[in-house]
């Protein structure tokens, strides 16, 4: 295939539109299931009900599910011969068009001057990661991660004395539950937990975000981690923080 004249700008705009306005099916199912678990008439049930209603309205009107369309993070897999420089230009162009169409809120702000570029482009904005692969096609994933859940994201260095967390999987369990407790309702729960173990500070954060591309109901291929994930999910929900921090049974969806 000749990739020289390839222009995916329109496809990128459509990808942004869908990511901003349509919630994936696994998440909808998770929210519906969670709503069924909450006490009838509780604030938790009410919150989930409103969230589900909002998902329908957003899809119908092609408007953002959340006003904070966050930092767009593109993960692009491409075959030999594709110019990633051109793809990056097309992604930037698409981000500006999507902002113009109100699919995205203008979120690119100069950290020093505080000036908003107005079109979601700027230095290192949107975030893009390119991975060369052996397949023929180009595959693009997009994550729009908002500021609320960014604010409560955190990193722990094991061992952690006060939490009694050693440099092992039990230590990981302890610090993850602590992070969920610290977050309370501030990250706009119910949450999906993305956890990475190891690496350096930068790679750890990146890996933890990439976990969010997983389907809600998938199982970790490593049986030890699968067991840990299941346990943390169940225990996080025992904390009783609930949707929006209103209290309730759904603190995490997965």
């Amino acid at each position, binding site marked *: 295939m000749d990739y020289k004249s390839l222009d995916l700008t329109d496809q990128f705009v459509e990808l942004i539109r869908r990511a901003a306005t349509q919630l994936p099916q696994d998440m909808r199912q998770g929210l519906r299931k969670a709503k069924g678990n909450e006490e009838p008439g509780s604030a938790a049930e009410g919150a989930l009900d409103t969230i589900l209603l909002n998902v329908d309205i957003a899809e119908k009107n092609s408007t953002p599910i959340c*006003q904070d369309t966050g930092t767009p993070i593109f993960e692009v897999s491409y075959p030999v011969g594709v110019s990633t420089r051109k793809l990056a230009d097309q992604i930037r162009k698409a981000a500006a068009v999507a902002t113009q169409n109100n699919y995205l*809120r203008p979120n690119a702000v100069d950290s020093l001057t*505080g000036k908003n570029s107005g079109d979601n482009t700027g230095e290192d904005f949107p975030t893009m990661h390119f991975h060369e692969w052996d397949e023929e096609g180009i595959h693009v994933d997009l994550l729009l991660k908002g500021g609320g859940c960014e604010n409560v994201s955190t990193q722990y260095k094991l061992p952690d004395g006060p939490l009694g967390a050693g440099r092992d999987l039990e230590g990981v369990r302890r610090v993850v539950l602590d992070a969920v407790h610290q977050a309370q*309702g501030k990250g706009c729960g119910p949450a999906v937990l993305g956890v990475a173990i190891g690496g350096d500070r930068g790679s750890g954060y990146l890996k933890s975000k990439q976990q969010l591309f997983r389907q809600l109901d998938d199982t970790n291929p490593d049986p030890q981690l699968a067991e840990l994930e299941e346990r943390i999910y169940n225990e996080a929900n025992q904390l009783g923080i*609930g949707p929006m*921090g209103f209290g309730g049974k759904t603190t995490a969806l997965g």
Partner: protein
Amino acid sequence: MPELTTPISDEDIRNLKAGDTVYLNGVIVTGRDAAHKFMIEHFITQPVQVDEAELYADLKKLLDGGVIYHCGPVVKTHADGSYSFVAAGPTTSIREEVYQADVIRHFNLKGVIGKGGMGGKTLKACGEQPAVYLHAIGGAASFIAQSVKEVLGVYKLEFGVPEAMWVIRVENFPVVVTMDSHGTSLHQTIEAQSKEKLAELIG
């Protein structure tokens, strides 16, 4: 369901208890980090400058008995220059904890809408003023935008669309009182309960 309409009286505020759901009506103003910092630095800790006197007078009027909404909306600009809100859910409020109590007191705010709750300083100001913290549903931005019937104006648009102060008229905006004027904060209660549970799980 009980309704609240701006400007809100002290009596209406005193009648609200943490856990109540209310529908909010009337004119409110959005404000996030930049707006709060600006109000503190330009109006509250410093004498108001001549070139900002008009803005100050406008805000005094809008916020007296009024409500600030922690929200950075997605806004559509129409061909005639008018605006409408496309998506307008709450942003995380705790970032304004350092500013909020002073803003409540200075402007006689009766309510702050946001998500995630706020801390002890704000709770104290809510008791004294009186005022309440109202929790909107995060992740419900398109739904809440339907409650925003009209965009009446905007101040400090140079802060960028999310950080500007948008003056909006809302109808039946559903919110939950999570911090009342009697010293009760649902956030503190849930925090304490979940802390006990955490201690059981990792103790």
